[in-house]
């Protein structure tokens, strides 16, 4: 089992490639790897309560750990209370800690 952290900067509403990116995340999770996602930049937009993205919501439903960058949220005036229940809040420290722990960190 490997540890993966995906830095998700692209959003499913404007970037069609996120379809494949979310697929990859889900497949790695299905394969038994420890997978986490940090949403940054416009990547935070599907985390807003009420946002409709089936592929993103599947990741949450399956139990993939998803965090949203608090800086990106603040820039977009998204409060923590506006996030879907399964989405937590984090900062860049999450990425650095994963890199220092030897996890596979991948930019999307």
């Amino acid at each position, binding site marked *: 089992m490997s540890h993966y952290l995906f830095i998700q*900067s692209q959003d499913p509403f404007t970037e069609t*490639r996120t379809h494949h990116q979310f697929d990859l995340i889900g497949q790695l999770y299905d394969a038994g790897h420890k997978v986490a996602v940090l949403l*940054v*930049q*416009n990547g935070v937009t599907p985390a807003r309560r009420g946002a409709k993205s089936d592929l993103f919501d599947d990741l949450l439903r399956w139990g993939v750990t998803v965090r949203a*960058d608090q*800086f990106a949220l603040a820039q977009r005036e998204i409060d923590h209370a506006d996030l879907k229940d399964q989405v937590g809040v984090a*900062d*860049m*420290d999450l*990425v*650095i*800690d994963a*890199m*220092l722990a*030897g*996890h596979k*960190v991948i*930019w999307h």
Partner: protein
Amino acid sequence: MSDTKTLTFAFMEPPFESERTVTFFRLLDAALDRGAGVRVFAYEGAVALAFARQQPHGNAVHHRDSEEEDHPLTKDWIAALQEKARSKGIGFEWINCGLCVDERGVNDVIEGCGRGGPPDLWRYASEAHNTLTIGTR
């Protein structure tokens, strides 16, 4: 031999274009906060991040002069990270891809940023505790 772990970052985004640049610099800052050494291999448009002749400018539409506009310059952000690393006694290295520099004519870089090529990225990645590549897409 120091037990400081070194992280390598490969980045290709030009300055003043994308939110990725801000995220990238936040990552470098967070790495230094965690006490990690940092090595950056800048290629393609990112070689202009360290261009020494970047200039702040005013904003006539908003009636602000240069000082009021306080336009952020990436060369200053790099210098600030260099200083932060020095103050913490940890390494901060920056190499620009020489071919990419020549293509863009941005040879005049701030002190502490070097010139190299893909073998340096290989060396950085081989010696690093971990490496993150941030693609343009």
